[in-house]
């Protein structure tokens, strides 16, 4: 098996699981060295060929696998020879850290500049304008809404944003 040091990281395991799903995990979690065909993988892992192909194409779409095609001269059939490209995982996750950072910054701005009301029974949150339109009563159950304090959300977002800025050398400090 290849890329063992990367696959030891629980976040990377989780990432692959998120991409290929539970059925694809046997394929994603045990990349062989060198080239392999979908049939070889299916046999080795005792999986349906379709499940193997599905995982391989998801990995391909995420730059984590590549293939070359060979045509069998007698039968005319195409064989796909796959290579796992897990060296790209760190760069992929780096761009995910940047995407998360952007989203957190946008969301923090929204949280800071809006007021919220909450129906505690239904756990539904309303913006001030929406809440006013409903007369500050939950449209689902009729319970009066309470003003909701989002300080804890904002402060935990502050902390994560600061950690991301430090790690990625972006934002305030850069």
């Amino acid at each position, binding site marked *: 098996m290849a890329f063992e040091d990367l696959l030891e990281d629980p976040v990377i395991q989780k990432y692959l699981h998120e991409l290929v799903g539970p059925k694809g995990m046997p394929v994603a979690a045990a990349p062989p060295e060198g080239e392999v065909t979908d049939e070889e993988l299916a046999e080795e892992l005792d999986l349906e060929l379709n499940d193997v192909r599905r995982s391989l194409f998801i990995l391909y779409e995420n730059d984590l696998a590549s293939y070359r095609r060979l045509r069998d001269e007698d039968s005319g059939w195409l064989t796909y020879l796959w290579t796992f490209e897990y060296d790209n995982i760190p760069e992929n996750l780096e761009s995910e850290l940047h995407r998360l950072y952007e*989203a957190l910054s946008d969301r923090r701005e929204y949280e800071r500049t809006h007021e919220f009301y909450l129906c505690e029974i239904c756990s539904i949150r309303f913006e001030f304008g929406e809440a006013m339109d409903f007369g500050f009563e939950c449209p689902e159950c009729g319970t009066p809404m309470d003003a909701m304090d989002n300080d804890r*959300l904002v402060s935990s977002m502050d902390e994560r944003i600061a950690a*991301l800025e430090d790690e990625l050398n972006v934002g305030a400090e850069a």
Partner: protein
Amino acid sequence: MSLAEVEADLSEDERAGLELVRQSGGIHQSDFWKELGVSSRKGSRIVESLVEKELVDREDAVYDGHNTYYIAPTARDLDFRLLMAGDMLSPFIGEEEVDANSDAFSQWIMNLAYED
């Protein structure tokens, strides 16, 4: 050879250099050898070797008006746990668009605020 094995094989100077790059989060080559307390020639040999082993990234830079290199840790050194809130991974993974107001992201932020 895995990266861990490559790292275990480093000379003392290389190891100190790698540590400096990681701790600084990125450093210009002209500061690198000074901070490390070695000659500029030795500094550049250390960087050369770390680049070749893919332990650091190097790019051209202009610093204090002269041409130098900027030496940075590779993506492998990033702390990917920053993608997690509790046991939930960033909801943008596998998604084309980033929607900062999506329900999935609200859930992620709730996890972040109330994780133990």
